[in-house]
């Protein structure tokens, strides 16, 4: 039983099945700006990776509406448990691009201290919870945070993002099941981009849709055009209202497409026909939103130029800044394992420091890092 697909903007940009959400012009343009910024960030970062200036990258190309549209429907006190393909959430919530760039460089100014691969961001103030690589784990954690909100009787919502492949993981199952049983104010966003690295949808599940999986957990499943930022916004808003009203969790499937490779390490031409991307190019989420905004006379050519210029400048400044910062000090490696440092860590650091100071480690190996 596949639910019908929620959409607001027709593929051409004209109005469609659902009414557009009530958003101010400023808010609409802000959402648009972040989508553009995310796109440009992707583009620059992939180039930086190709140039060997950052080590790795995961493009969000084509999925800007899917994560930014839903994030826009939530408030400052709501919590995010994102995946690695959702940088726009951080940007929308006010994290400066330079913070993301420092993380991608893993430098001394990275707030996560150069410890994880690029794109594994963490921003405490924005309730953007530390991203990890293991697939699905954040789903159960989001359910737990939502349970905590309910226990505390706070009107907040936890929202988590994951791909179609992630629906096969253990914690997709435990997370949705827990949220269902405890009627937790949690929103589960499955960004169905058709692929899990090289595995297409039909290799992932025999379910007709991802939204249909909601029934197994006694919650509504909503299917939305994931390249329609207003539709995604509307579906998320509705789920959030439901959650705040005490009616429990919702599973939202955003139907979208991974336009790029899985990551900078992946070459999709080895397993998928580039032709399938052609159709999806015509559904580009930014082009569609732009056309809609233009049609509604909310965006002029001058504004568009200005937005892009501003994003470009911001990005360039961020890259310049990140390039200037050196790597984190070696001592930081021994911090934050625990609140305090154990005797073992003290000893290990003391020994290493001594070896580094005496220069006995292999030549050219550690000179690059400050102590």
């Amino acid at each position, binding site marked *: 039983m596949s639910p019908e697909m929620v959409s607001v903007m027709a593929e051409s940009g004209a109005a469609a099945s659902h009414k557009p959400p009530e958003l101010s012009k400023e808010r609409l343009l802000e959402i648009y700006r972040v989508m553009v910024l995310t796109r440009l960030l992707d583009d620059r970062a992939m180039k930086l990776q190709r140039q060997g200036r950052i080590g790795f990258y995961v493009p969000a190309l084509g999925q800007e509406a899917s994560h930014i549209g839903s994030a826009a429907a939530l408030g400052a006190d709501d919590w995010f448990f994102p995946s690695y393909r959702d940088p726009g959430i951080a940007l929308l919530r006010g994290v400066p691009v330079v913070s993301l760039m420092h993380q991608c460089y893993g430098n001394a100014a990275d707030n996560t201290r150069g410890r994880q691969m690029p794109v594994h961001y963490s921003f405490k103030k924005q309730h953007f919870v530390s991203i990890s690589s293991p697939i699905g784990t954040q789903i159960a954690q989001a359910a737990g945070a939502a349970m905590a909100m309910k*226990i505390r009787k706070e009107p907040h919502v936890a929202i988590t993002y994951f791909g179609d492949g992630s629906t096969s993981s253990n914690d997709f199952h435990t997370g949705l099941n827990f949220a269902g049983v405890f009627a937790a104010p949690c929103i589960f966003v499955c960004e169905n981009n058709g692929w899990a690295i090289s595995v297409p949808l039909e290799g992932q599940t025999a379910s007709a849709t991802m939204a249909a999986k909601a029934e197994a957990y006694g919650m509504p499943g909503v299917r939305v055009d994931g390249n329609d930022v207003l539709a995604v916004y509307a579906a998320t808003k509705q789920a959030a209202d439901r959650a705040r009203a005490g009616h429990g969790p919702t599973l939202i499937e955003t139907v979208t497409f991974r336009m790029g490779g899985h990551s900078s390490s992946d070459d999709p031409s080895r397993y998928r026909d580039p032709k399938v991307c052609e159709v999806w190019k015509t559904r580009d989420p930014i082009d569609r939103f732009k056309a809609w905004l233009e049609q509604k006379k909310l965006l002029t050519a001058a504004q568009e130029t200005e937005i892009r210029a501003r994003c470009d400048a911001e990005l360039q400044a961020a890259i310049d800044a990140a390039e200037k910062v050196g790597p984190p000090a070696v001592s930081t490696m021994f911090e934050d394992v625990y609140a305090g440092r154990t005797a073992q860590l003290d000893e290990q650091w003391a020994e290493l420091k001594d070896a580094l100071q005496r220069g006995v480690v292999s030549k050219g190996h550690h000179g690059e890092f400050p102590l």
Partner: protein
Amino acid sequence: MAVMTMVEAINDALRVEMRRDPRVVLLGEDVGIKGGVFGCSAGLFKEFGGDRVMDTPLAESGIVGAAIGMALYGLVPIAEIQFGDFIYPAFDQIVSEAAKMRYRSGGEYTVPMTIRTPIGGGIRGGHYHSQSPEAYFAHTPGLKVVVPSTPADAKGLLLASIRDPDPVLFMEPKLIYRSLKEEVPAGEHLVEIGKARIVRPGKDVTLIAWGGMVGMCEKAAAKCAEEGIDCEIVDVRTIVPLDEATILESVKKTGRAVIVYEAPKTGGFGGEISAILAEKAIEWLEAPIVRVTGFDTPFPYTLESVYLPEPGRIREAVLKVARF
């Protein structure tokens, strides 16, 4: 002070802390009305209600995953895993997530959570109700691992674990859940994490153990005393962080060490302790470091009592190193 079993002491600690700190919540399978399959949470559902004492669906991964989310959000969750043998479905959440959250977020996000789970033999539980999986977790930076050996320590260490700012795996030896009783201080009673305990001072051989094996060492030491060998017993108490100083001091004094644990020998945590001694105290050693352990087999049912280290086997090892 009341005389309590370890189960009662744990129950007391949970109650004390839940009364003191409204952020503390308990979750797990059958921890609610039933009060846990061993009764550790008896009465808590009634006193604190379903919002703070939650019976969960049957999914350890979900229990720990949800507890991490709660801890991130500001609660202080205590997750019960019904048996240590059933902690493996939660391995990913514990090892990849709880243990690494502080580090990977640059210290911004933390997981002040306690995972309680009964471990070890002694209840004729066979393969799946008897394991001692502490070594798996001891090899996981970011996690603390605590194993009490008496009711009073159970209370004191559990309170310290709950208040610890990092995830603590609190493992409760079933062998002595009810077989030991002692006076346990009422109300507030804290035992510092990271400090071993000298159970019995001695000068000839150091016995190093934790959990249910501490009592076995005491029995063995009593026998050895009859034969003129004076054993010192170190109760490790916290596997991570390990109190190396106390262990080294004892072994440097006696020059002889026997390490006792229930888990399979290969890869057990006693190997780590032995390695530390071989690295830092070899000049003081006058005999091989001997381990008395479970065997390298799954935990058996009928032959449980043969599998578990007992005073006789420990005494043999003591004699071996004493007479070396």
